[in-house]
């Protein structure tokens, strides 16, 4: 799909299965993989020019919400849109994620079309205003 071409996406997710899923579904994108929040922050420091971050919630070492809090606390990263993709699907979970600064919340299991629609909303090479 052209809508996701050229985007640089940081995927913070502990499931190898889901990493593979993104690799197949977001094939035109450049994906950077991290398996927990701590690794996600390290990858972000190495790749501050990412266009979107796809974030899981339940992860070892540092949860998705902790990661999100740290990203939004840093002025150089706060503009990067964060999309939460999680099995936590209760209304309060969604509200908590959006209040923490996520721009969208996708519940697992998800459809490829929904993922592409969300990722396609964010222009590539977004920078601070």
């Amino acid at each position, binding site marked *: 799909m052209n809508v996701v071409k050229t985007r640089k996406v940081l995927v913070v997710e502990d499931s190898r299965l889901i990493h593979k899923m993104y690799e197949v579904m977001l094939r035109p994108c450049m994906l950077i993989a991290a398996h927990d929040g701590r690794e996600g922050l390290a990858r972000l420091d190495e790749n501050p020019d990412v266009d979107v971050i796809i974030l899981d919630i339940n992860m070892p070492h540092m949860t998705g919400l902790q990661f999100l809090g740290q990203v939004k606390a840093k002025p150089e990263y706060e503009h990067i849109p964060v999309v939460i993709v999680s099995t936590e699907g209760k209304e309060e979970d969604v509200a908590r994620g959006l209040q923490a600064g996520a721009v969208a919340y996708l*519940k697992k299991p998800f459809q490829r079309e929904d993922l592409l629609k969300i990722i396609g909303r964010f222009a590539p090479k977004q920078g601070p205003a």
Partner: protein
Amino acid sequence: MSDAVQKPSRTSSEGGDPLATLMRARQLVHEAQAAIEEAQKSVVQQRSVPGEIPGQDVRLVQAEQEREELAARLSEVEHQVGRLMTLYVATYQLHATLDPADVQSTIAEIAVNMLGAEQFALLLRDDEKDVLEIRLQEGAIDASWSKVVIYPGGDPLIDASLADGVLRFGPVEGSNVLVTVPLRVQDITVGALVITKLFDHKGKLDEEDRELLDLLGAHAASALFASRVYSRAARKLRTLEGLIKLVRKG
């Protein structure tokens, strides 16, 4: 063009190489996109022609209808591509390792992330002891068999699936199990994936989930079987190597 966009549904049910099917489906999506763009151009051209052309309105309506039809087909093909991708990734990941623990964790990941299972268990036959071990359990399953390490039998849905190797949906009288997926290798049932609860937002299992359940029944079992055989062989090899070293030293 209409023939081309109808093909994926037939191809997807034929089995074969999932990656090749996926590539073909992608090609069809691109063809459908090109056809939509053509139809849109045609509409724009017709609108930009000055003056009245006989039958212009009818052709315009036809072109609009064709565009809408193609857009709907494109959306359907896109959906099929997504579904095939899910099946491909599940198969790929199940066979990506020869470590039995990794295969088990992949089965769990498929259950949680692709099927939306909140509570489930993986039962596997131990050939040496001739029992069914509960190798994996996720969530607080409300069943008498969930409190033990060896499945004692007694759940009608699980017992029936284990006996005849047929996938069964519940709940039925005496069982709160939602689905039992028998894991079969060469017509022998070596275990079962038992799902007792889905995430609230998942709702229920649908026809597309059924395809994934069937895939799990066949591929999870063979992946587990292969990994167990490999790990046993590797263990024996290490023992033999140790013995040979000992003999050489002596």
